[in-house]
């Protein structure tokens, strides 16, 4: 065998061995493949999920946004609340929580809210469970497919029983009892029902990788959104602007090095996309016209760009922190722990 062939064969063997090890890792690791920013354990969410929101807590906490504005809540309030939580549960949200996901089948404020919150991070499972059992009155528990589900009899707002459970050592799910139990059961069986929701998954896959926060919603969710807005003549105007129906919406955002927001909405056709884009541009222009009273609004408006691509409308906004500072009311200087932005 020639030297070249030896090299080729050697490379193939390394890659093949690596592939075998990788496949073995998949087989042995109960975690399933992630979909976009959604971790494998979140695929146990019900197939009927219509919207998902995600927050990368690590990026959020490390962002200049958090450093600047977390102190606005009161320098003493934050440490105390977190300190109490840490004392009871061993959980420091800033340190131990990685991601928070909110999912639901209806608009959260609807009469039959079945939202779920999935939190991933590092938990002292015993301490958290103990805190749940002892700190909340009326907490009961049941076992679903071998997994303990804590039930909260919180019926004050008429939303039904709330529940919480550990999907695994690094994942907590909270929300409506039925939704939590569905999720827990799927997880215990090793099912991934959310994979059957191909429309939602394709939206999740289009989320820009590494976004600090994001949201996707499909047609069902968006059907409940307003169909029209008051015309720019002001609240007193009798006219209204018809909004084209959206088939899907993807929102992503970042907080570092500036506040960035990207919205992509899919409409039924190119005409609808153009109309929607014109509506958005109109509002941006309106804001710009208010510049006489508030010059900073003009900068805000100019930071927004609207474009269309076939049936999609893209809205991108980029707000430097200096601009946001200029439109905030005067406040106390930022804390000494504010991180400096690095290139």
């Amino acid at each position, binding site marked *: 065998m020639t030297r070249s062939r030896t090299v080729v064969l050697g490379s193939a063997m390394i890659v093949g061995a690596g592939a075998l090890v990788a496949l073995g*890792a998949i087989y042995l690791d109960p975690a399933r493949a992630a979909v976009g920013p959604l971790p494998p354990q979140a695929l146990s969410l019900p197939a009927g999920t219509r919207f998902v929101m995600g927050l990368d807590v690590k990026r959020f906490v490390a962002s200049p946004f958090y450093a600047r504005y977390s102190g606005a809540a009161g320098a003493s309030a934050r440490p105390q609340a977190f300190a109490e939580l840490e004392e009871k549960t061993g959980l420091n949200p800033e340190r131990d929580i990685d991601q928070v996901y909110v999912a639901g089948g209806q608009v959260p404020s609807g009469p039959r809210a079945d939202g779920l919150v999935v939190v991933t991070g590092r938990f002292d499972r015993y301490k958290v469970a103990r805190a749940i059992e002892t700190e909340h009155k009326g907490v009961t528990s049941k076992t679903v497919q071998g997994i303990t589900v804590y039930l909260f009899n919180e019926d004050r707002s008429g939303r039904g029983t709330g529940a919480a459970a550990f999907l695994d050592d690094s994942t907590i799910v909270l929300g409506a009892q039925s939704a939590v139990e569905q999720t827990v059961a799927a997880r215990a069986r090793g099912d991934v029902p959310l994979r059957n929701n191909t429309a939602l998954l394709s939206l999740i896959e289009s989320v820009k990788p590494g976004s600090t926060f994001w949201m996707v919603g499909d047609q069902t969710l968006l059907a409940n959104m307003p169909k029209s807005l008051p015309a720019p003549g002001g609240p007193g105007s009798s006219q209204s602007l018809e909004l084209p129906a959206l088939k899907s919406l993807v929102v992503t955002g970042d907080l570092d090095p500036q506040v960035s927001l990207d919205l992509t909405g899919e409409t039924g056709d190119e005409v609808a996309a153009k109309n929607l884009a014109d509506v958005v541009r109109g509002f941006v222009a309106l804001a710009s016209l208010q510049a006489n009273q508030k010059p900073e609004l003009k900068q805000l408006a100019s930071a927004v760009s609207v474009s269309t691509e076939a049936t999609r409308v893209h809205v991108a906004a980029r707000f430097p922190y200096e601009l946001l500072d200029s439109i905030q009311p005067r406040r106390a200087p930022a804390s000494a722990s504010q991180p400096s932005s690095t290139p």
Partner: protein
Amino acid sequence: MSASAAARPPAPESTAGRDTSRPVPFPRAARAVFDLALEGMVWSRRSLLMAILLGLPIAFGLLFRGVIVSRLPPRMTAFDLYGFVIAIYYIRNALPLAALFYATALIADEVDGRTITYLLTRPVRRGAILFGKFAAYLVTTACLTLPAVVITFFLLTTTRGWTGVGARVPDLFRDLGVVVLTLLAYGAFFTLMGVLLRRPVIPGLLFLFVWELVANLPGYMPRLTITAYLRSLIRHRPPDEGLAEIFGQVLPTALCLEALGAMIVVFLAAALWIFAAREYVLEQ
């Protein structure tokens, strides 16, 4: 002279099975060129330098495990670093450079070395020559890159044990696919530049480090680059601030695959057309 007279090549009857009225069949000819080209490509000084360039992440992975891991910022994971290696080091820099230095030289090396005559005076179509050499380039660069990606992946993602590695494996396979696509796409483009231009390296560098920056612009312009499609295919993204804006748009996967496939076909077809019509006059 009797010994020589006795050592003549076999009589024409032994050409049975070889149709001398047509060129050698394309696959067979391409395979013969591939074998010949691979021999010179894999075991060469250029490949040694490329092996170092493409294998640097392995050294980084070892350094990471030994030294850097304890200094990792809390919001950055080892997998984020792996994503950085793939997105920035390989896809954006090392692989396009490897493609530039190999693919522009596919024909140029033969011309400069004056061995092109041997290839052009064989009963093979010129397309088979180009195809065979391109395949040799692809195999050579893939042999240098894919093992490095696999090793780097495991070095970085198993820093704190094997928990969660399984969840990352699909990203590894996807990245390997994107690596191959990167080599194909840039290789096809630089093959075209190599047959079109006498000195393709400088224009190639300008393309990589000037034109490809267009991928960072908003709107439709990124679609005129190669890197915009490749970036959109990888699922992870570097965690550092500042680099967040470099990534730009994420184009749909189907569009990326179609666009890259079309680019590869068009560039190679154009290269073939030019190579087939060109005369190679070696100065004596």
